[in-house]
């Protein structure tokens, strides 16, 4: 009998690793060289521009004019308030801070694993929080009114995205149920509604809100409210499709079991099907939110000073006329969007993993 030897454990050294992963064949070696070149060609000039050659201190454009080939960060530093609050009244900005803090706290509570009472917190975030946030941001109940024309920057971006997604949730659920309904009229109307909004670009929807909504409503509509209605309708169609995906993933047995227990349509939907379907759709709902958050940048085209709008307004300001102001503004706004979207897409991935492991059991 041959003596059993323990399996050979080879810790690949850096040379082996390089050979296996980067230079396993001539073609691979060529690709590696090309990729290295690409990285060098993109990353190095970017770092040069954004960090090495950039102007970092100073309070006026003179600081940036001296650094011709670098980013103009003083522009961002001096205007950071505008990027967050827009033209929101200085003395009232604590209200924005409070709203943002509430939103952040609620979201953290919901996303961090291990914290109790998630369901309760979720319910509060979906019902009470919007009302409180509305009062805080708009005013009333003893608070000074801040007209929406003065809102801007990150608040506009977040308000449009969050209201869009929260408002589209109930509508999306109804539409998803409608599309799966056996009643021909309900199904037909749902399909038509969903396909209409999914078939047209958001910018035409926003133009419609700006140009046509006032005519159809017959009364004057606040410009922001018009945009919010448009975004909510638009995103409800996408939400409906996401939730329909969740509904389709529920095994038929669940429907039959609910029916066997004598539950009616609404009872079985509310107590049995929807809770499961929504849980399954959660990663895609987050994905939807990412898409919507990115799409909010379109409101700058119809005259809102959202993050992008503020950056553009800054570039048209004589006080900051430098060759790099526009690019710096875009880079900053891009980084902010990227940080928000990337972290959410990570969270969505994580959720998928949790759901998948839950299914396996």
């Amino acid at each position, binding site marked *: 009998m041959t003596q059993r030897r323990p399996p050979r454990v080879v810790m690949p050294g850096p040379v082996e690793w390089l050979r296996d992963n980067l230079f396993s064949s001539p073609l691979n070696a060529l690709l590696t060289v090309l990729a290295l070149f690409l990285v060098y060609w993109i990353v190095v000039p970017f770092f040069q521009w954004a960090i090495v050659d950039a102007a970092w201190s100073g309070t006026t454009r003179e600081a940036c004019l001296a650094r011709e080939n670098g980013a103009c960060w003083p522009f961002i530093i001096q205007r950071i308030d505008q990027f967050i609050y827009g033209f929101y009244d200085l003395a009232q900005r604590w209200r924005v801070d409070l709203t943002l803090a509430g939103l952040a706290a609620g979201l953290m509570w919901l996303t961090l694993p291990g914290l109790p009472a998630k369901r309760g917190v979720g319910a509060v975030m979906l019902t009470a929080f*919007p009302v409180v946030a509305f009062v805080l941001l708009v005013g009333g109940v003893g608070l000074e009114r801040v007209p929406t024309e003065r809102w801007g920057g990150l608040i506009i971006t977040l308000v449009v995205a969050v209201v869009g997604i929260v408002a589209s949730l109930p509508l999306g659920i109804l539409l998803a149920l409608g599309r799966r309904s056996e009643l021909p009229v309900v199904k037909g109307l749902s399909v038509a509604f969903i396909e209409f909004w999914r078939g047209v670009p958001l910018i035409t929807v926003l133009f419609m809100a700006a140009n046509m909504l006032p005519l159809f409503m017959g009364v004057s509509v606040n*410009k922001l409210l018009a945009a919010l209605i448009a975004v909510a309708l638009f995103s409800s169609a996408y939400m409906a499709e996401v939730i329909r995906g969740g509904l389709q993933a529920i095994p038929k047995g669940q429907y039959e079991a609910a029916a066997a227990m004598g539950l009616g349509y609404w009872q079985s939907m509310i107590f049995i099907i929807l809770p499961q379907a929504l849980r399954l759709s959660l990663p895609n709902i987050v994905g939807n939110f990412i898409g919507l958050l990115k799409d909010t940048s379109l409101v700058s085209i119809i005259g809102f000073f959202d993050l992008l709008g503020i950056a553009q307004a800054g570039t048209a300001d004589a006080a900051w006329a430098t060759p790099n102001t526009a690019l710096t503004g875009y880079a900053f706004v891009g980084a902010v969007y990227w940080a928000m979207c990337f972290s959410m897409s990570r969270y969505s991935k994580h959720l998928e993993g949790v759901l998948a492991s839950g299914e396996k059991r």
Partner: protein
Amino acid sequence: MRLLFAALTAVLVAAAPAWAAGSPTLERVKKNGYLRCGVNEGLPGFASPDAKGNWTGMDVDFCRAVAAAIFNDPKKVRFTPTSAKVRFTVLQSGEVDLLSRNTTWTMSRDTQLGLEFVGVSYYDGQGFMVPKKLNVTSAKQLNGANVCTNTGTTTELNLADYFRANGLKYKVIAFEKNAEVLAAYDAGRCDAYTTDASGLYAERLKLRNASDHIILPEIISKEPLGPLVNQGDQQWGDLVRWTLFALMNAEELGVTQRNADQMLKSANPEVRRLLGVEGAFGESIGLTKDWVVRIVKGAGNYGEIFERNVGVNSPLKIKRGQNALWNKGGLHYAPPVR
């Protein structure tokens, strides 16, 4: 959803029409406690917000004059920045009470949009700005040029007419917003930038080196700019129109922001009528008889507004030219108050 509903209700309540006697628009403005004014998104000298969101400019000051006439407080205005494209809809839908946004008075706009121009607040004309290094001194030399401008304005049409009439070739690059037109011009996308001359002076300030660019002598169009109101509320139209005339009459009669109170004691019957010492002309448009005092003290007279915002001592450095009063060689000729 609840948020939306609450907001919707708020808006519906706020916008409930008041069919009271007199001017429904004036009633609404008084009930709101402020005037809603549509202005440019950002055109230095005419309407632009500073870093704190305070608006300044000629168009802005006109809104303040109307607010002063109504409330005796020029601050009771809310400004809605409007793009060239949505400005008419914003007024038509009643989102603003008054549009004071360097808008050219044309026949089609006056007759087809359901809107009414109340007068001319600034005589303008379309011109061209080019980089000095292009060595162009006349618009006639712009054959084959790429010309940047913004969409939704009469400038696109004037441009087409001018080049066609002169047998010149051109390409028009039309952007949605002023900021983008300027950025593209600055990046060398176009040989020339065309818009109203006043706008060119304003935009030139935003360039890195304003002195590297010149404004060509040709003015290729008549652009009488003026404030607009919705058709169908005659009294409101009168109020806005006579506010404009009051500004000009005040300048003509030498009533200024500083001397308005002293002028009340003037012996000149025209001044006495204007300031409401004799007669009560303001009451016929739903205001008080000291309406012009309120206007001039709140916003200054036309000349003061002009000099403060765009005049030779402002950054824009525009001469009065056509915008002087009729008795000083200009075109502004306000009907008398009597």
